[in-house]
Every structure is written in structure tokens, then in C-alpha cells.
């Protein structure tokens, strides 16, 4: 839940610049989606939303509509400056980007290849877990076994160091057995590495900050 790759859709419907507006709108309807990345030779060259397509074509009932749907090309109406995310971006960072740019869909690129798409509805679900990210402090991500008392154990060790916990959110970890959770702490210290050492000695796995 905490990174883009955990929330994005991996099966992405895409278009080519040469596809028509009619084909694109049909795809939106069929898949019940609003954002379609445009690929040319495997590279992301644009993105188009159902709204872009509608505003580029005459309204329902207009006699010119059918012709326009067949004539207007995706390459002519798509947005070329595409804002993207990476699979390992924190979900809150992606949400902030979408808010700032006033967009609702972020294609996800890994080494230049389209591997998913994250939409605002994907983010909404994750966001409720990530309140408080703008409080000053350092970010720590700790894997906690999914058992009673383990979060308290981690928090207690941090507290014993005289370090204040500014906020904490947790989400299920989608890998590894037995089931575990990732707890994201915002801690009021410049030196979370020290807390990370203490936690690792107590057999917790610390995902951030990175350990040497």
C-alpha cells in the first residue's frame, strides 16, 4: 500500500498516436477507464483522457460527430508532457504530484518502460493510511510481524532513545511469510540510523533508512 507499485494497475490499456478518437473512446467505455497512455514504438509519448477526447469531438447528436470520431487522431489531442511516477515512489509523493499538477492519472515507468498506471482512485484508498507525512522529521519504514504488541514494541524502543514519534501509519506488506506489516514512522530525529540499529538488534527489519 505504501509504494506506487503496490497500488497501481499493472494491466494498462494503451493507444497509438494513429488511433482514432472513436477507437479511444470505445476503449474507455469497454474497460471503464478514463486515462489512456499513448505509446509509440514502446515509448510513452503522451496521455489522453476521455475528457480530452470528448472536447475534441462534436457532442452526441451533432451530425459531424461520426466523421470527427473517425478523423481525429489520438496523436493530435494527447497531452505530450506526461507526468509519470516510478514503482518505488512513496504513494504520498505520487498523490502530491497529482494534486499539484491537477491530474488524475500517472503512468508508471521503470527504466523507460510503462509498467502500470496509478489513478486518483488508487491513491485515495492508500492515502488514508498515510496521514501526517508533512510533519518535520525523518522517515523510517519498519517491518513488523502481524501480531499483537509488535508495533508497541517498535514504538517503545524508539521512545527509549528519547525520540518522539511524529506520526505512524501501517499497511500490509505484500511479500514474505508469515504475514507482516510495514510501519512508516515519522520520527523527530536527524539520526534515524541509530534507531534503526537498535531495532535491527531487536530483530526487526528496517526498510528505510538503508542499512550499510
Amino acid at each position, binding site marked *: 500500500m505504501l509504494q506506487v507499485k503496490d497500488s497501481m494497475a499493472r494491466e494498462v490499456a494503451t493507444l497509438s498516436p494513429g488511433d482514432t478518437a472513436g477507437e479511444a473512446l470505445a476503449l474507455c467505455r469497454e474497460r471503464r477507464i478514463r486515462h489512456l497512455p499513448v505509446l509509440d514504438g514502446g515509448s510513452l509519448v503522451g496521455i489522453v483522457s476521455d475528457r480530452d477526447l470528448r472536447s475534441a469531438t462534436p457532442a452526441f447528436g451533432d451530425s459531424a460527430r461520426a466523421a470527427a470520431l473517425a478523423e481525429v487522431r489520438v496523436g493530435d489531442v494527447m497531452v505530450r508532457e506526461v507526468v509519470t511516477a*516510478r514503482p518505488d515512489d512513496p504513494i504520498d509523493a505520487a498523490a502530491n504530484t497529482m494534486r499539484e499538477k491537477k491530474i488524475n492519472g500517472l503512468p508508471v515507468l521503470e527504466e523507460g518502460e510503462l509498467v502500470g498506471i496509478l489513478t486518483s482512485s488508487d491513491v485515495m484508498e492508500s492515502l488514508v493510511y498515510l496521514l501526517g507525512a508533512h510533519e*518535520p*522529521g525523518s*522517515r523510517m519504514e519498519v517491518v513488523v510481524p502481524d501480531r499483537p504488541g509488535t508495533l508497541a514494541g517498535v514504538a517503545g524502543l524508539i521512545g527509549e532513545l*528519547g*525520540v*518522539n514519534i511524529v506520526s505512524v501509519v501501517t499497511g500490509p506488506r505484500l511479500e514474505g511469510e508469515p504475514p507482516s506489516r510495514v510501519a512508516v514512522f515519522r520520527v523527530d530525529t*536527524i539520526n*534515524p*540510523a541509530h534507531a534503526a540499529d537498535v531495532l535491527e538488534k531487536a530483530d526487526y527489519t528496517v526498510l528505510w533508512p538503508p542499512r550499510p
Partner: protein
Amino acid sequence: MTGKAAIVHDTALESYGFGGEHPFNPLRLRLTLELCENMGLLEDYPLTPSEPATVRDLTTVHNLTYVRMVQEAGRGSALLSDLLNYGIGTGDNPVFPDMHAACARVVGGVLEACRVVMRGDAAHAMCISGGLHHALRSQASGFCVYNDAGVAIARLKEERPGIRIAYVDTDAHHGDGVQWMFFEDPDVLTVSMHESGRYLFPGTGEVHEKGSGEGVGYSVNVPLQPFTDDDSFISTFEAVVPEALRAFKPDLILSQNGCDAHKLDPLTHLSATTRLYEHVPAAIHDLAHELCGGRWVATGGGGYDIWRVVPRAWTALWAAVSHQELPEKLPEVWLEKWGAKSPVGLPRLMRDDPADYPAGPRAREISDRNKRTAEEVLEKVLPLIR
């Protein structure tokens, strides 16, 4: 043209530290000064002494109640529950004896360095105990109790009305304390390059923090991706800093030269080497001569690999400040004395070997992202500077 240089230091400045295993260890100052000395870089430069900052100096930017609290903490007469409200007595900023005096000395050192330069006694000055950029108006934060740069800037503004000061911070952490103190002030330009707050303390320093009110455009932030290397750090610096300073036309440049962006630093996740710590001072030196008659004051800052990184980085800083050639090798006498005490093997050369620091797997992507950040700063923030 170059001018005379001053180094402000005395051993009393080495009493600012939190003791024990705390990562902020003033031994790093001793290691640096002895390295400079053993290399002969201090031969023509007697140490300039300084007085502690007064309460009057400190309250230019700090709340008087806070200063009183620090004084009481150092005397052992304050309640921990009261101190915690001021960020004192935490794991980061534990109480130590006479902490007010030690902290006020650091501020006094930087203030003296600024005055030496503004009086024209020296073109450039360095005070490596300074650089405590996280200290807030009423709160200790991130190992910083009093904000030396903040006090020095505010005091100079009183002493020399109309002065324009550019503060350039290349510590791996955002220079938040200094930024907030002058967030609405168009006569103080703060430029901070740092690891993105999404991954590193204090969490601030996004591009959109660009000042407020009259000061819009005068807080410049360049958040860098984790694992940023020399190439990308330097090209981002070159894209932003000279243009920002040229637009601003300062009368004095005050630089915070924290060296915790080095790959070996245990507190951060950047991947710089000693190359960065030669480049940045050289670039600031040239800008000082181009823009403000050479007036440049350099401070230290973060730097937590105190054996392998700090002494070399800040010796390189001093070499730039004092226009001396940086020797290639560390002197045997220094290596012998400190090698016995160091828990890690000491480097024998002043410059890191690039072969020991190969590009990371995502170097290209990181560099592209930093480039985009620089473009955003150039587009959205720098045009606001008048």
C-alpha cells in the same frame, strides 16, 4: 583577484558537542585543524580568536525564553519536561554542562568571521565550528541549539543597514532554520541544496518553499534524489547557484559547507566524494569575487564520518578560502597519531579515487530527476529574485 584569508578558531569552540556516542563529535574539528596544521596550511594564518555571542546577539533571531531555558539546562536547574518543549533533552539534543556558553561561542565565532570580512581585514574567513542550520527560533533541532548563521545575518543587518546577504547551504540536510528565519526577507537570499525531505530529516526543502510576503523568491530549494553523485550534484549546483546569486547581487556570501553528502556519511543517502568538496568552495570563491568584492564567510555544518571525510573535506575548504594548493597526500605524522585511534582505516590521499566510487545502477535516472528539479527552480523561483 584574491585577498587575505582568516580562520576563526580557538579550542573553546571544540566544547560544543553532546558527549558519549553522540554522532555530533567535536573531535572532527581537532582532526581537521591538525590536518591543516600538519600540512603547513596554517603557517601564515594565526587563528583569529572570538568572543561568545551575547544574549543581545542571540535574541536577534531566538526567543529570550528559549535562551533562558538553554542557560538553565546547562546549569542543571531546569526540568526535563520543560526542556522537551524546546527540543532540549531529546536523543538528538541532550543536555550537556554549560551548553549555553558552548553554543554561544560557536555563534560568536561565525559572527566574528563575518565582521572580519565586512571590516575588510580579510577577503574571506572560515569558522568550521559554525553551520548549525537546524536551530529554530524557540527550539533546538538536529544537533543545533543556536543558529549561528541566523544570528550573524540578523546582526550584520543591524550593523550595516541595507546589506544583502546570500546564504548558500550545501549540507545534505535542508537548511530549514536559516530559511524560516528569513523567509519573508528580500535582503537575505537562502539557497539550500539537500537530499529530498521525502527521505531525509528535516523533511522540508521542497521547491515550492520559495519565501513569503516580500520574501517570495528569496528562499531557493533544490531537493536532490537519494544516491545523487558528484556529477549530478555539481551540474545541479552549477545550473542554479550562480544564476541565483547573480540575480540577487549580494554584498556578502555566507556558505554552510556541511560535508555529509559524502557517500561514507552514516546519516544521509547521497553519494558524493571529495570532488564535491573541492568544487563547491572553488565555485563560491569565484562568485564572491565576481559579485561582492570577494566577501565570503565559510562555515562547517554536518559531517558524521569524522575520520575519513570531515578532515579532508574541510581542509580542502580551508585551502580554497586561503588560496593554497591542496596537497595530494595526508601527512605521515597525522596518519600515525590518529590512525591508532580511528576505528576505521584512514585514507592516505586527500582526493577520493573515482574508481572506488563507481556510478550506481540508477545514476542516469537520478541525474535526470535532479535536472528536472533544477529546471523547475530556474523556471518558478529564480525569476522572482529582484
